[in-house]
């Protein structure tokens, strides 16, 4: 009920995004149980990837592993890593951004400097170096390292918003009436930043998916586990492109792009909720001319009725 009502109120693009995201989350939950084959089971003696057919809907890899099963099983790892990183990094961004914006002065200077330094450090090379030497122990350590480098984007925006909210009259009123600082932060400022926090979460998830898939593609991940990134890694290592086996590398790539697209669309929808001007409005036909929103207000000239 609630979900359906929330969906109806969303702008069109966000609706599409939410539905795609829902499908991915669903597959992440039930994927491994509905996978038709064991994703690692190979056919002995097979040396060439099979194109999609009745048994293997998305074809097989060079060793005869079922691509569809790999996709269904691998969704979980990628989705969990993306959402987990989004959660941790957004939490960091909220805590750091809000304290910097609210406290001001030296703490603000220090935290802003920290955020800016993290922003200009090249993340992927650093991640390759760090994760390349950490033992590959699943999603959580990777998510933590990704979050450690992914929080500054959100923190900057949240800090700026907190800075402007802090000086509003209602916050001053709350302070004058003797409310405690944590109460002001939690009940006066935080609710006004929900949209921004959601947008920062969505942006971080996009970053996390793209980065984690790129890392796995480079082989900097647990290669014994299935995820979109490791699928692409094995496809690249098995010369999928040279063999023309598009069904091997295209499905994980398209899934990453779709998952990421759902995030961008959700972000779009959030932007449009906050700023109605961004909604794509069509052209209006007034008189004989088509008017665009950027044109001046149309004025209809009265035409004289000719008498017969």
């Amino acid at each position, binding site marked *: 009920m609630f979900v359906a009502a929330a969906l109806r109120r969303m702008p069109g693009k966000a609706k599409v995004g939410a539905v795609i995201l829902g499908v991915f989350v669903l597959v992440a939950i039930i994927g491994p149980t509905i996978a038709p084959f064991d994703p690692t089971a190979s056919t002995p003696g097979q040396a060439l990837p099979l194109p999609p057919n009745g048994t293997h809907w998305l074809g097989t890899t060079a060793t005869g592993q079922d691509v569809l099963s790999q996709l269904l099983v691998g969704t979980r790892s990628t989705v969990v890593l993306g959402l987990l990183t989004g959660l941790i990094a957004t939490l960091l961004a909220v805590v750091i951004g809000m304290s910097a914006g609210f406290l001001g002065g030296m703490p603000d200077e220090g935290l802003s400097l920290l955020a800016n330094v993290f922003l200009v450090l090249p993340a992927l090379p650093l991640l390759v170096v760090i994760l390349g030497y950490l033992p590959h122990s699943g999603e959580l350590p990777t998510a933590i390292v990704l979050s450690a480098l992914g929080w500054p984007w959100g923190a900057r925006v949240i800090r700026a918003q907190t800075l402007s909210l802090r000086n509003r009259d209602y916050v001053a009123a709350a302070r004058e009436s003797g409310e405690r600082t944590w109460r002001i932060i939690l009940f006066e400022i935080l609710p006004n930043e929900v949209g921004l926090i959601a947008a920062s979460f969505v942006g971080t998830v996009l970053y996390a998916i793209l980065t984690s898939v790129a890392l796995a593609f480079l082989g900097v991940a647990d290669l014994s586990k299935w995820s979109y990134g490791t699928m692409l890694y094995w496809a690249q290592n098995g010369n999928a492109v040279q063999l023309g086996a598009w069904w091997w*590398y295209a499905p994980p790539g398209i899934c990453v792009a779709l998952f990421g697209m759902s995030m961008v669309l959700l972000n779009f929808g959030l932007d449009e909720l906050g700023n109605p001007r961004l909604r794509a409005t069509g*052209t209006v036909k007034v008189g004989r001319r088509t008017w665009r929103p950027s044109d001046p207000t149309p004025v209809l000239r009265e035409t004289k009725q000719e008498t017969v």
Partner: protein
Amino acid sequence: MWFITRRLAFYAVAAWVAITVNFAIPRVMPGNAVDTLLAKYPTLDANSLKALEAEFGTHNHGSLISQYFSYLGDLAHGNLGLSVNLYPAKVTTVIGQTLPWTLILVGTATIIAFVLGTLLGILSAWRRGGWLDRAMPAFTFLQATPYFFLALVVIQLFAVSWGLFPFGQGYSLGLSPGWNWSFISSAAYHSFLPALTIVVTSMAGWMLQMRNVMITTIAEDYVLVAQAKGLSPRRVMFTYAARNAILPNLAGFALSLGFVVAGALVMEIVFSYPGIGLTLYNAVTSDDFPLLQGIFLVISLAVLLACLLADIVYFFADPRTRTRTAY
């Protein structure tokens, strides 16, 4: 001037952090240069071992602080040590050979993507509800596509299926790098597909941001006044609306450079492009710490330098930065 001073102070701190992180990397990671060389040449005798240790600086078992200062001293003299894997090549020589490839390719592609994306953003905001604006979801798909996946698709289509462009590498075999026509044309031909992937995947982000800011700007009163004055739509679009709307894009340009470097890293591996990303990757996989450190330092400093340049451009483009005390 306050703005510039503050930024300069920030870059000084950021550069110091980058240098220190770089110092920490091999000391936190397992293994060292001499062990790697030993594994490669197991028949080394004790004397050459000692010589190697001296050369790589691993004999230095002094306190961390003294190591840190000798490291800073080496940096000040431009001494980044020797590469383990390409022994006895100097790290600076290796970087000098590979950096231009990346700079030229990624630099050109990024600028093309920025200009093209910003222009498309201006147009789609100006003609809101037009076909370009309606095609927005397609662009979000491109924005969310991983660089290397698009690279694989592009290789499949243009190189494998249609045979229009070469598979990878920076230039044709049998040519040697130099300033002659056959080499330059070959390099340009080979860099077309990598550049195409960068442009296509990074263009959408610029376009979306530009569109959103532009739409807000178009609704401003001064744009209406400009239209009421009877200026040509093109003039209003570019010199009134877009000129102000481009500021966030300019600021984002500097910050995106880190991502550009990251994207280039993966792209170079897919295309076997002889740039700094591929070299970094090889250094990581073969435990070549001196080279890895050197490349990481160069990348960090390059990003910082680019950010500084973007800041200066921003300083001249946005008069507000020149008057406001805080930003």
